[in-house]
């Protein structure tokens, strides 16, 4: 569990996290906080993470204790924002060149490859947060049996459409880039298009259902 508190991640950016379970009920409280805190004086952006909230300021914030107290009070209010959006079905090729760590995840979890895929494709995942790179969706609801550590050395580049897992999180990369997660499959989706308005395909509250189209063991 994370320590509750407000921590600098830059001289003009702070992350507020809470020692709370990692589930949709608690994520809804962070969605509510993001909406309210983004209206506060001096706050440029307030963006939900995975049961945490990150604030960006135009200048180095003056009074951390006051901010911390206001954020704690807001958290304690227990207010939730109930977002329900669209459901996106995504065809996945599990394993093969697009999923190089599928076997490793099976070994780490002690499951067969078939069981990893069955458990991974079972739930409808809710988009908890959008971030990392443009249009990327952090999904909640991964089967705890599929929990794996991040890689000790991040990969320099992974193609867009890569389906990965790490910790209790899973997601499909929206574009090519570095990654510290374990990649188990691939898909073809355009999660971000600068010519589209809004450019990001999904927002928090939307859902993704993975459909195993092919398995390359």
């Amino acid at each position: 569990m994370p320590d509750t508190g407000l921590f600098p991640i830059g001289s003009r950016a702070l992350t507020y996290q809470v020692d709370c379970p990692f589930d949709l009920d608690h994520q809804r409280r962070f969605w509510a906080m993001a909406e309210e805190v983004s209206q506060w004086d001096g706050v440029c952006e307030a963006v939900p993470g995975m049961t945490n909230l990150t604030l960006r300021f135009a200048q180095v914030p003056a009074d951390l204790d006051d901010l911390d107290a206001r954020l704690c009070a807001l958290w304690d209010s227990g207010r939730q924002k109930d977002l329900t959006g669209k459901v996106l079905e995504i065809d996945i090729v599990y394993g093969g060149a697009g999923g190089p760590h599928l076997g490793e995840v099976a070994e780490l979890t002690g499951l067969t490859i078939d069981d990893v895929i069955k458990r991974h494709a079972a739930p409808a995942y809710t988009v908890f947060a959008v971030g990392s790179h443009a249009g990327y969706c952090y999904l909640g609801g991964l089967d705890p049996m599929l929990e794996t550590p991040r890689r000790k050395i991040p990969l320099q580049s992974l193609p867009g459409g890569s389906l990965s897992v790490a910790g209790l999180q899973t997601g499909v990369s929206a574009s090519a880039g570095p990654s510290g997660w374990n990649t188990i499959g691939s898909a073809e989706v355009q999660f971000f298009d600068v010519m589209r308005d809004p450019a990001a395909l999904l927002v928090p509250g939307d859902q993704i259902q993975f459909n195993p189209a092919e398995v390359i063991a």
Partner: protein
Amino acid sequence: MIEVLSLPPLATVQDLGRPGHWAQGLGRAGAMDPLAHRIANWLLGNHETAATLEIPLTPARFSFAEDTVFAIAGAACGATLDGVPLARNWAGAAKEGQVLALGPMTEGARVYLALAGGIDVPEMLGSRSTQSREAFGGFDGRVLRPGDQLRACDGQTTSAKPLSCAMPALRGSDADAITLRVIPSAETDQFSAASLDAFWSQPYSVTPQSNRQGCRLDGPALQRETEGELRSHGIAPGIIQVPGGGQPIIQLADAATMGGYPKIACVIEDDLWRIGQARPGDRFRFTAIDLSQAREIERNTQAELDRIRTGLQKARELQKGWS
């Protein structure tokens, strides 16, 4: 207008970045050395938000397709215009057909090339910066190549007297290393005492694997004593993450907007330009400060920037008086 004759494939058009789209996962991009970017613009009387070309690797050669007023600022690279040496931070006029040559960099790691009026590329989502990962913004969302032509925005001047200026020092009294002022972060106290001692006392070298996404460092390994994966959270340029391998990475302008590696500290915004000018093999030393000190440094930096900007403005006005 200026044409690229030769240029290693890493140069991108940048401005002060594209903040405000964090909720869509879009990083801010922008100049790695915002100080040199600003000075290149101010030397020409441009607004600081005008787009410049960020050149992280030389040698490079450009030819002027017409009379053009331009500026360079940042790394020392023995720049010449038709063989005549130019000052490190310099603005002036080139005649049609003249060639600007940038030689090997001898101090610093990035040169900024500005045109009077700013480089004319379309503004997208509020900025002209290249969004490298998403491949939009800047010059067609890509690095510059030989044969590419950069135009200036309308309203440029075509004659100007040469002007140069000094840059704040990259290094302080410690000639052996570049000092970065950092604020402790969420997991600082979870690192072993030996790791923290090394982090605060030993230099860390910039490795050749460093780029606009992150600066990968090499030094004493850092071990976190607390087990467990972190939940992904927002990260910002300057954050120093420590993956399981123990070697720190400073996330920079093209970094992800969220991440989950443990954070040992974060470099203050006002020192990010120093990382932008650090070369592979250069060494960093980390000095801990708190947010109130960061606030004071921010005020001093702003005053220093105002002093440079108004100084250059006055110099330009004086020049006009002489002509």
